[in-house]
């Protein structure tokens, strides 16, 4: 948001009409550690997807494959690594 809207430009009632626009707000810079996946070990069980608090595990639902992480939003909590049954995800420090 480069310029904040004036009162005349706002939707009445304090309503937000752009559903899901929080996606444009990046929380990735909260991270001190980033998850990395070793796809050779991954069995595409989708546990990481299911338990990610931030919906930041990228999957191809049609192919049924785990595709990595949305680093724009991943906060680096490490839940994905903790739940991975094959230890395919490791947390590495952000540089």
């Amino acid at each position, binding site marked *: 948001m480069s310029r*904040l*809207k*004036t*009162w*005349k430009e*706002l*939707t*009445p*009632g*304090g*309503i*937000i*009409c752009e*559903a899901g626009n929080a996606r444009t707000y990046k929380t990735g810079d909260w991270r001190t550690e980033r998850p990395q996946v070793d796809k050779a070990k991954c069995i595409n069980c989708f546990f990481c997807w299911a338990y990610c608090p931030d919906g930041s595990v990228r999957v191809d639902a049609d192919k049924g494959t785990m595709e990595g992480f949305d680093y724009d939003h991943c906060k680096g909590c490490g839940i994905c690594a903790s739940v991975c049954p094959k230890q395919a995800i490791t947390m590495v420090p952000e540089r």
Partner: protein
Amino acid sequence: MKVMQERVSMGLNGNAAAAHAMRQINPHVVAAYPITPQTDCVERFAEFVSEGLVDTEFVTVESEHSALSACIGAAASGGRVMTATSSQGLALMWEMLYIAASMRLPIVMMVVNRALSGNINIHCDHSDTMGARDAGWIQLFSENAQEVYDNMIQAVRIAEDMRVRLPVMVTQDGFIISHAVERVELLGDEEVKTFVGPYKALYSLLDLQHPVTYGPLDLFDYYFEHKRSQIEAIDNCLPVIEEVGKEFGKLSGRFYGLLEEYRLADAEYAVVVLGSTCGTAKEAVDRLRDRGKKVGLLKIRCFRPFPKEQIIRALAPLKGVAVLDRSVTFGGFGGPVFTEIRSALYDVSPRPLIIDFYYGLGGRDIYVEDIEKAFARIEDVVRVGWVDKHIDYLGLRE
């Protein structure tokens, strides 16, 4: 249960008049909780529901807080919503009053004016609605059961007008109006239906193609702007209230403005009154006029938004004004009507002298003689040329 298709004149109390208006308006949702003296209205509406005379989803909530909360949820879902309450019920709704207004939801609420506890008292004064005067609701006061009925119907049009989209409170004095049977002219069912028109949804939660977020966290970067736009909204609705009042007049023969002036045109002294006491004040004015006094009445129908310009126009030419306040501003400089009127007249030069009377708290009767006393006092004040005592009491044992 008789269905009234045509215009009819009936003996109704204020609660019944409101209930009939609600029946004819046929809102999508009514959520209400019983409280004396409003119960009678809700009971009657429940009968209309039970007899299938309305298509309303009647939500018999477990508290007034939930009543208004449910109304907010319902109104945000794109349909017509009404409720009714009184006194402690309005007080319990307090938190939600502000939210309904800030979400710009056109809810119509009938409030039977009743004293606030403590001690507990079920009779009329205006402390409930006056306490809610800054919540962002439009407030229309009624003098009698006919006005209750008429105001309810107009309130729907005002609230839902695209230039307004704000909640409206229609008030009537507890027992004095709510339980006193008077002759009331009802419009035909179809006439009311046509007058209020179909509901126009705006930002509905049930519009799945356009999902909206109501009630987000609003911090220092936007909250102020949202409040500013809300100020604009309520200030802009005065002309709409007048327009609707005229249009309703064309339909019914009963025209409404923001104020009603009674024998004020050539008056030197006036009382300013809201609600049922206006009838008593008219009688006092007539009696004094018979004795040659140049007195009149300014009745405030619309207290929120405060019709400042119209009030200045009406009162500026006078020598003296006595305001009658039926609610107390503890520790304040006079009642809410007094402080607002006095402030409005500050820039007028020369300006009338103004005094305030607290009266009628907890249902204490007010008599024609009391109002004559108020006129006598303001006449004295003007004779002396300055106000010795700004605030006094009518009908109190000293």
